[in-house]
């Protein structure tokens, strides 16, 4: 039996809770008599006492073991983000090396094979180890806070997902450090990546890195989708859900549909390479193009998997800084969903030059162009929100403007290359390089940098330095344009992608030199951003709960939030609860405090549905990740690893899923 009570959601510091511990113990004895209401939050257990008890229940064990065992989505999300940013930095350094090599024609600074490794590592890292994980990391961190829940669904899966991702990244970069880095391009076209033309283990390492990151991404997507559908605060119907949650919902589903294609493709590649199957051997009636179909069936949605969360960032930041709810919320949601669906119908536009039936191409041209409609409408909605509101141009909002200015160029060049006759010229040239960097940096990295600044106080409890932030913004923005705009011309002047050098006399000297200079400016700007992040961690201004005046629930808890996120689960009555319910936040009570417990709600209406026990911290996800990782890595070397290696996997997974001992049976929550 629970009753909702309106009361102030004033938050107390944890230090105060410490001091009151003795009182709590007395309370415990007193409450022990009232068996029914024991260890539940509610009118009788509130304030600092409640928070201290929740802290005791939700806190993870200290030390390295606790660090490895944690299932706290905020910790995992932060790890995801920091790891992904580290990979961004590494891949960025590779980009600078490549730009140094390309600064002059006929340059021999970096040899051909080394250069091939560089762009392979750059592309693979950016796509698999930075862009997707960082988006999922931000999602894992912020989604439960935005939804007003105490934990993600499947928190152990979440922890597992991070370790798989980390191991995949370490495998790739470890191999690179040992001089066995892949050199087959991030797309690894067969037969170049096949057994004959890629001797050694370089290609296998790439392919298994894919498997790692796919497992990680799919796991994280399951966590996010389940959290969004089942763990929203009561009252947060789908129609009131924050747009960022919508984007992560769409993206999560896309990940689950798209990633298996490439995991299958890479498994078949490994099988070709390890045991000599003929999936991609044209002689034996396999097909080199099968790889491209499978790869781009994943690869194209991948772009939207990266881009859609960024539109969620955009919606969040535009709303906050324009001080207006997003204009035409249903249109934006529909745009998201239709983009997600259309994304699966365009993969062939990466294959216009492969000689597939020509009339069929027209369909993909049309589908590719159609994507411009939902995206165009979204952009209109953001601009309309800004136009209608009173935007404040703090650092995150600057990135919003940079997004519009940059991404639209990339989007329009995307319309150009959607046309078959145009694509046949522009495909695989620097025009494409320019195009997708405009889309991915303009469309995803700019909003990401903005949103990291935006949520930095929520993650760390401190504000990032505004002045430094503005300097690095302008550097990254202008440097980017300098680096990538000339690439359009390099491409039109006949410079193909993935060449380690180009001859003098083709007019490519100037655009390449400009690009190289621009790249270094971007590099410096990112460095400055990182310095700002580290500096602010220690000496940044302490952040209030809601420094920007945000509209969504993550601003309702402290910065950084306690392990249990919310002392009482809030109840939502509008799309912008923080604006509409200022000072007065309705909550729901009755969740246990002696056990980790969270509230599940119904999928559409978000009516309270179940009290669900939340798993304790556990080492088993970590061990399972290691066991599976060992299988993945050793299966590069021997097919036997699949049979032998599955034993530890089975042990780890059995231990992981061993049923939790519940002290007492939880009862259904009745509203």
């Amino acid at each position, binding site marked *: 039996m629970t009753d909702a009570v309106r009361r102030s959601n004033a938050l107390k510091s944890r230090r105060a809770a410490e001091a009151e511990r003795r009182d709590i113990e007395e309370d415990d004895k007193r409450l022990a008599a009232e068996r029914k209401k024991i260890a539940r939050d509610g009118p009788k257990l509130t304030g600092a006492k409640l928070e201290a008890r929740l802290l005791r229940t939700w806190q993870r064990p200290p030390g390295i073991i606790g660090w490895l065992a944690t299932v706290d989505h905020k910790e995992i999300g932060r790890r995801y983000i920091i790891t992904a940013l580290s990979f961004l930095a590494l891949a960025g350094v590779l980009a600078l090396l490549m730009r140094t090599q390309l600064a002059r024609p006929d340059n021999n600074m970096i040899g051909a094979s080394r250069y091939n490794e560089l762009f392979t590592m750059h592309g693979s890292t950016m796509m698999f180890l930075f862009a997707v994980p960082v988006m999922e990391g931000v999602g894992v961190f912020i989604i439960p806070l935005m939804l007003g829940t105490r934990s993600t669904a499947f928190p152990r899966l979440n922890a597992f997902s991070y370790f798989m991702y980390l191991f995949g990244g370490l495998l790739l970069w470890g191999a690179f450090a040992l001089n066995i880095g892949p050199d087959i391009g991030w797309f690894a076209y067969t037969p170049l990546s096949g057994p004959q033309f890629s001797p050694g283990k370089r290609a296998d390492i790439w392919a298994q890195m894919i498997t790692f990151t796919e497992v990680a991404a799919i796991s994280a997507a399951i966590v996010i989708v389940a959290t969004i559908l089942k763990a929203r605060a009561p009252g947060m119907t789908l129609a009131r859900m924050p747009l960022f949650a919508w984007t992560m919902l769409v993206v999560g589903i896309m990940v689950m549909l798209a990633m298996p294609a490439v995991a299958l493709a890479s498994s078949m590649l490994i099988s070709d390479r390890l045991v000599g199957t003929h999936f991609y051997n*044209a*002689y*034996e*009636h396999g097909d080199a193009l099968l790889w491209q179909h499978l790869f781009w069936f994943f690869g194209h949605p991948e772009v939207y998997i990266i881009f859609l969360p960024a539109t969620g960032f955009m919606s969040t930041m535009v709303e906050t800084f324009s001080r207006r709810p997003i204009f035409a919320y249903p249109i934006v949601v529909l745009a998201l969903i239709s983009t997600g669906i259309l994304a699966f119908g365009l993969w062939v536009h990466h294959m216009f030059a492969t000689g597939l039936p020509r009339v069929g191409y027209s369909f993909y041209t049309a589908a590719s162009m159609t994507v411009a409609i939902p995206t165009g409408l979204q952009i209109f909605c953001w601009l309309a929100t800004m136009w209608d509101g009173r935007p404040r141009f703090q650092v995150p909002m600057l990135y919003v403007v940079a997004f519009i200015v940059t991404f639209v160029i990339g989007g329009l060049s995307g319309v150009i290359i959607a046309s078959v006759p145009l694509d046949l010229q522009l495909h695989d040239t620097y025009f494409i390089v320019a195009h997708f960097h405009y889309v991915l940096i303009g469309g995803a990295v700019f909003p990401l940098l903005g949103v990291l600044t935006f949520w930095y106080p929520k993650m760390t409890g401190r504000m990032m330095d505004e002045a430094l932030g503005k300097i690095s913004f302008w550097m990254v923005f202008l440097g980017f344009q300098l680096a990538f705009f000339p690439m359009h011309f390099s491409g039109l002047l006949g410079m193909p992608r993935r060449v380690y050098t180009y001859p003098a006399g083709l007019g490519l000297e100037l655009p390449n030199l400009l690009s190289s200079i621009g790249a270094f400016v971007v590099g410096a700007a990112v460095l400055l951003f990182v310095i700002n992040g580290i500096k602010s961690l220690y000496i940044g201004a302490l952040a209030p709960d809601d420094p920007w005046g945000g509209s969504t629930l993550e601003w309702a808890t402290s910065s950084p939030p306690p392990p249990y996120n919310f002392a009482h689960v809030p109840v939502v009555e509008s799309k912008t609860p923080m604006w509409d319910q200022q000072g007065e936040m309705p909550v729901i009570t009755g969740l246990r405090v002696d056990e980790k417990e969270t509230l599940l709600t119904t999928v559409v209406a978000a009516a309270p549905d179940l009290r669900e026990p939340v798993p304790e911290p556990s080492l088993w996800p970590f061990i399972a990740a290691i066991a599976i990782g060992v299988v993945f890595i050793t299966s590069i070397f021997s097919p036997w690893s699949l049979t032998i290696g599955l034993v530890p996997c089975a042990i780890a997974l059995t231990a992981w899923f061993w049923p939790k001992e519940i002290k007492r049976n939880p009862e259904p929550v009745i509203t």
Partner: protein
Amino acid sequence: MRQITPNNVSKLGLAFTFSTATTHGYEAPPLVVAGTMYLITPFPNYLYALDLTKPGAPTKWTFKPKPLAASQGVACCDTVNRGAVYSKGKIIFNTLDGQTIAVDAKSGQQVWRTRLGNIQKGETITMAPLVANGKVLVGNSGGEMGVRGWIAALDEGSGKVAWKAFNTGPDKDVLIGPRFKPAYGSDRGKDLGVKTWPPNAWKIGGGNVWGWISYDPALNLIYYGTGNPGPWNPDQRPGDNKWTTGVFARDLNTGQAVWFYQSTPHDLFDHDDINENILADIPWGNSRRPVLLRPGRDGFFYVIDRRSGQVLSATPYGYVNAYRGVDLKTGRMVPNPDKDPKQGRVTRNICPAAPGLKDWNPAAFSPITGIVYIPHNNLCMDFGAMEANYIAGTPYVGADVKFYAGPGGNRGVFTAWDPLKRRAIWEIKEDLPLWSPALATAGGVIFYGTMDGWFKAVDARNGHLLWKFKAGSGIIGQPISYRGPDGRQYIAVVAGVGGWSGAVVSLKLDTRDPTAALGFANATKDLPQKTTAGGMLYVFTLPR
């Protein structure tokens, strides 16, 4: 000789045996002249003379020609020899390294020796020479080595080359002159041996003469088939590739071509056309016509008018899916486009396989029954064409192939074929490919050997097995029947497995590689368990 008949053949017993001291594929027939048996072995091409007049047939003399050892490295399909001939007191034979040697039949002393082939280019000679009217006719092997095929006529007395005709290249090399009147339009024109090839490809284009030559004294014409064009990969040699895979009729004296018929223009499957030409006069329409009976490697039984080269009929005598048939108007073979091997993609299930429905091993024609007895294969293949690189003295093939049993699962068939009714009278299914020639005796018994070493006698009328003998090695050699000095009928055969089909045994190949021995290893994987290499002569006769 009619002493051996279906009724008594079961009593056949061993008369004597003789070990040839070689273990390579023994494809040659023993040669019996005037109470002496001559045996020509595979490399190193020893020539033995056995005295049949003495009990146990002791050796009279042995001639060792000492061919170059390196020639073994350019002989595509085991280091075989297909026989020696006797003429005017001389035994004439070829050596693997490209020489023709005449040896005095009585003394075993060399009379002359002529070098015709150059192993540095990949040329070998494995065929049996033919002596006709004072000319020794010899052709070269090496269709898998990018060798340009030729036939040469040597003066029987001196060994000097009388004429030499190439099978590719300009007309003057091919000895095409005013007498050349082919039956079909596609063979008429100047320098077709050049124009039907990409530039210079004819110089390394094959068309070798490693099979059988026939001579028609009435017309003074010789008939012989030309081998496959090189390389096997057809994409590398667009065009009809004249004058490969066809039959030439040439004037014996001058070598001038008289007619030519190309059974498979632009050969796709190594379907050499070197098989025997059986000269027969058969009723056709309302007259008797002099014809060639040719059980072709491409699977068709051809009846060709030997005066004009006109094809009278062409009927498949086994399972064929690589071709649709022969258009009798144009004489042109119609290939099945589904089986056209394209570079870069394996073409599967091509029947017959590269060794053809029948390879070199000659069929036997019985003028008594009018039936042709054909020992042949039932093999299909997968063919993976790839670019061949020409390096003189090394293989020039450009294909990965593997053979396997055709429909029915048996790899060999012995067919009695009626050339007039154009159908099989009876058939014997043999598990292994049939690589031994057939012998038809006047007594109505057919002899042939199998690769697992059974020497069999069957009834010419119905194919019923009458007698069989297990030899020490698989039999691919030609059985003969001769009248011994004692007047009795003898049957002789040499058992020595090898050749293309038996190379897995004679060359000790590893059958884990299905492409080994140009793909034959896959079809004869079990052969090493069924037989071992050998080289033993067996002579049979009826008990006294």
